[in-house]
C-alpha cells in the first residue's frame, strides 16, 4: 500500500489539478452552506469544513436522474435507455461517515438479483477520497456507535489524515493508487503512520455522543406494537429534511415527463415521511399517520436493514439531529428504545 505526505495547503491545488482529467466533486462553500458540487473553473474547494450540509450520496444517487427516454412515433413508442453518462470522477474530501454510507448503499443497489445500473456505473467510475476527522466535527456526531470511526478508510479508495503539518495520504485500493501521481513523491515514514494511529485513537475517544444502536435490534424485533411509537411523532412536520439530508436514505419515486412527442422517465428522491409515499390508488394507506412513518424510518435503519444486509443503515453523521426543524432526535429515540 502506497503512502505519502503532502503539505497542508496543497489540498485545494491537487483537487483543482484533478479537474483536468476528472469530474471532481468537492466541498464548496455556497453562502452559508457547504455542498458537494462538481468543481468548475473559478470555484474554490473548501476543506476547512466540519461536514457538508447535503450528504454526498447525490454523487451516485442524484436527487433527480433520467432513467430512459422515449419518443412517440407513428408506429408507437420508441424507448431508448439513457446513454450512460457516468464520467470518470473523483469525490474529493468526504468525511469517513459519508464514505461509510456508500458501502451501505452498495448493499442495496448492487444486489445479486437486481442491479441498479445507474448507481453502479457512477460508483465504479468514481474514486473516493476521504478526509479523516481528526476531531469530531460536531458534538452530535455518533459514528462510533454505528460501526464507523472518525479516521477510517471504509468506503474510500484514498484516506487523507491531518497529522499536524502534513496530510498523510494512504492509498487503499488499486483505483486509489491510480491517482498517486497527483500527490507528489514525498514518501511517508513510519513516524507519520504512528502519528496517524495516535490521532485516530484520540479522535475515536473524542466522540462522546453514543447511542445503543446494536442493543436495539432484538428489542425492535419484538416491539412493533409498543405504545412507545405513539410518543415520537407528535411534533413531526412530515417534511423530508431528515431523509433528504441523510447519507443512507435511498427511497425514490419514478415519474414520467412529456413534452410534445418526447418523454423521459425520471427517478427522484422520495421520503417515507411523506404521507403520499405509501398511499395506494384505492385510498388505502398502510402507513396512515406519522406514527407508522416514524416507526418505518427507525425500523428500516436499525432492524430491516440489519435483517436484510446485516448492517445498520445509519452512519452517525448527525445531520438529521442537527437539521430536524422540530428537534426529533434519533439518538434519544434509540436510547428510549433500548430501555423498553
Amino acid at each position, binding site marked *: 500500500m502506497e503512502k505519502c505526505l503532502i503539505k497542508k495547503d496543497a489540498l485545494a491545488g491537487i483537487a483543482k489539478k484533478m479537474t483536468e482529467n476528472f469530474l471532481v466533486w468537492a466541498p464548496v462553500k455556497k453562502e452559508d452552506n457547504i455542498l458537494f458540487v462538481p468543481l468548475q473553473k473559478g470555484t474554490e474547494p473548501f476543506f476547512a469544513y466540519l461536514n457538508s450540509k447535503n450528504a454526498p450520496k447525490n454523487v451516485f444517487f442524484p436527487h433527480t436522474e433520467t*432513467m*430512459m427516454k*422515449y419518443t*412517440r412515433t407513428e*408506429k*408507437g*413508442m*420508441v*424507448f431508448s*435507455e439513457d446513454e450512460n453518462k457516468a464520467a470518470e470522477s473523483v469525490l474529493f474530501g468526504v468525511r469517513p461517515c459519508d464514505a461509510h454510507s456508500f458501502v451501505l448503499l452498495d448493499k*442495496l*443497489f448492487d*444486489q445479486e*438479483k*437486481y*442491479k*441498479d*445500473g*445507474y448507481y453502479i456505473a457512477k460508483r465504479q467510475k468514481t474514486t473516493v477520497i476521504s478526509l479523516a476527522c481528526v476531531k469530531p466535527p460536531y458534538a452530535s456526531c455518533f459514528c462510533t456507535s454505528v460501526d464507523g470511526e472518525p479516521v477510517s478508510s471504509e468506503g474510500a479508495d484514498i484516506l487523507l489524515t491531518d497529522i499536524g503539518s502534513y496530510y498523510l495520504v494512504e492509498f487503499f485500493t488499486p483505483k486509489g493508487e491510480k491517482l498517486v501521481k497527483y500527490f507528489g513523491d514525498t514518501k511517508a515514514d513510519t513516524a507519520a503512520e504512528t502519528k496517524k494511529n495516535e490521532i485516530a485513537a484520540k479522535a475515536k475517544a473524542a466522540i462522546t455522543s453514543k447511542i445503543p444502536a446494536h442493543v436495539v435490534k432484538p428489542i425492535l424485533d419484538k416491539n*412493533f406494537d409498543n405504545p412507545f411509537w405513539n410518543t415520537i411523532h407528535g411534533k413531526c412536520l412530515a417534511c423530508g429534511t431528515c431523509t433528504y439530508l441523510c447519507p443512507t436514505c*435511498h*427511497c*425514490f*419515486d*419514478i*415519474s*414520467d*415527463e*412529456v413534452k410534445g412527442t418526447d*418523454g423521459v*422517465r425520471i*427517478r427522484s428522491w*422520495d421520503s*417515507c415521511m411523506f404521507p403520499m*409515499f*405509501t*398511499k*395506494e*390508488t*384505492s385510498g388505502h394507506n*398502510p*402507513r396512515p399517520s406519522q406514527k*407508522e412513518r416514524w416507526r*418505518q424510518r427507525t*425500523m*428500516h435503519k436499525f*432492524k*430491516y436493514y440489519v*435483517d*436484510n444486509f446485516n448492517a445498520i443503515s445509519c452512519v452517525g453523521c448527525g445531520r438529521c439531529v442537527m437539521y430536524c426543524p422540530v428537534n426529533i432526535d434519533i439518538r434519544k429515540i434509540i436510547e428510549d428504545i433500548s430501555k423498553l
Partner: protein
Amino acid sequence: MQNPYIPYPVVVDKIITEVDTKDIKTFRFKFVNPEDEAKYSYIPGQFGELSIYGKGESPIGIASSPTQKGYVEFTVQKAGVVTSALHEMEEGTVMGLRGPLGNSWPLEFLEGKNIVIVGGGFAFTTLRSLINYMIHDDNRKRFGNITVIYGARNPGLLLYKDELTEWGKRSDLNLNVTVDKGDANWKGREGFVPAVCKEVAPSKENAVAVICGPPVMIRFTLPVFFDLGFSKENIITSLEMRMKCGVGKCGRCNVGSKYVCKDGPVFSLAELDKLTPEY
C-alpha cells in the same frame, strides 16, 4: 446486464371488456421484439409493470398462463392515472411492459396436492393464471383435485365468463361460481364466498388453499378454512402494496423486512404472521 427498469416494448393486441360496468378490461400484449418473449418467461402469481408513455407505471398481476404462448394478458381495473390511460388505449398501440416481477404461486409446493382456489372479484386474475396453468394437458397430472370457488358482487362483474363456462364442463375441475346477488338471468349460486366455502367444505387432506380477494372477503373466509383444519402453512395469499421500482429498491412496499415486490407478493399465512401487520 439487463437493466431492470427498462420495459420491453409490447403492442396492445386485443382488448376485452370483462364486466358490465366496463371499468375492468383484459389487455393482451404481444412483444414487439419476438426475442423478448423468451426473456419474459413467467410463473403464475408474478406481476408486471405496465408502462405507459407519459403516464408512468402500474404493477398488475399477470392474468394469462405461461402455457398460453405468444402473448401475455393483464386484467386491469380503471383506477389511477396509468390504468385510466390504459383503458383509453386502442388496439395496435405500442407501450411498455416490465418484469416478470416478484415471486409466484409456489408451484413446487403445490405439486401433488389437492388445490383449493378461492377468489373474490377483481383479484381473480392471477388465480386464473394458476388455474389455466394447472389444467393444461402438460401439467394436469402433477396436481390432485382442483376446487375453484369464485365469487363476484353480481353476475355482470364476473371475469372471464367464457372461460368459466369451459371450466364448468370439465370433469377434472370442481368449479363453484357464486354471486352476492343474482339477476333475472342468473341460474347459478347466490351467496357470499365464505358461506360457499363452508358449503363446499374442501377436505384439508393433502390440500392447499390459495386465497385472493378483497380484504373483507379474506377476513371472513380464513376462519372457514381454519375450521376445516387447514394449517397456516397451507393457506397462501397474495398481497398488494403501492409499488414503484418493483425490484426492492425504492423502499415503499416493504412489510417489515420483506419487500412485497421482490420477496412477495405471494406469502403463506404462516409467513405473513411473522411479518409486521402493516399492509
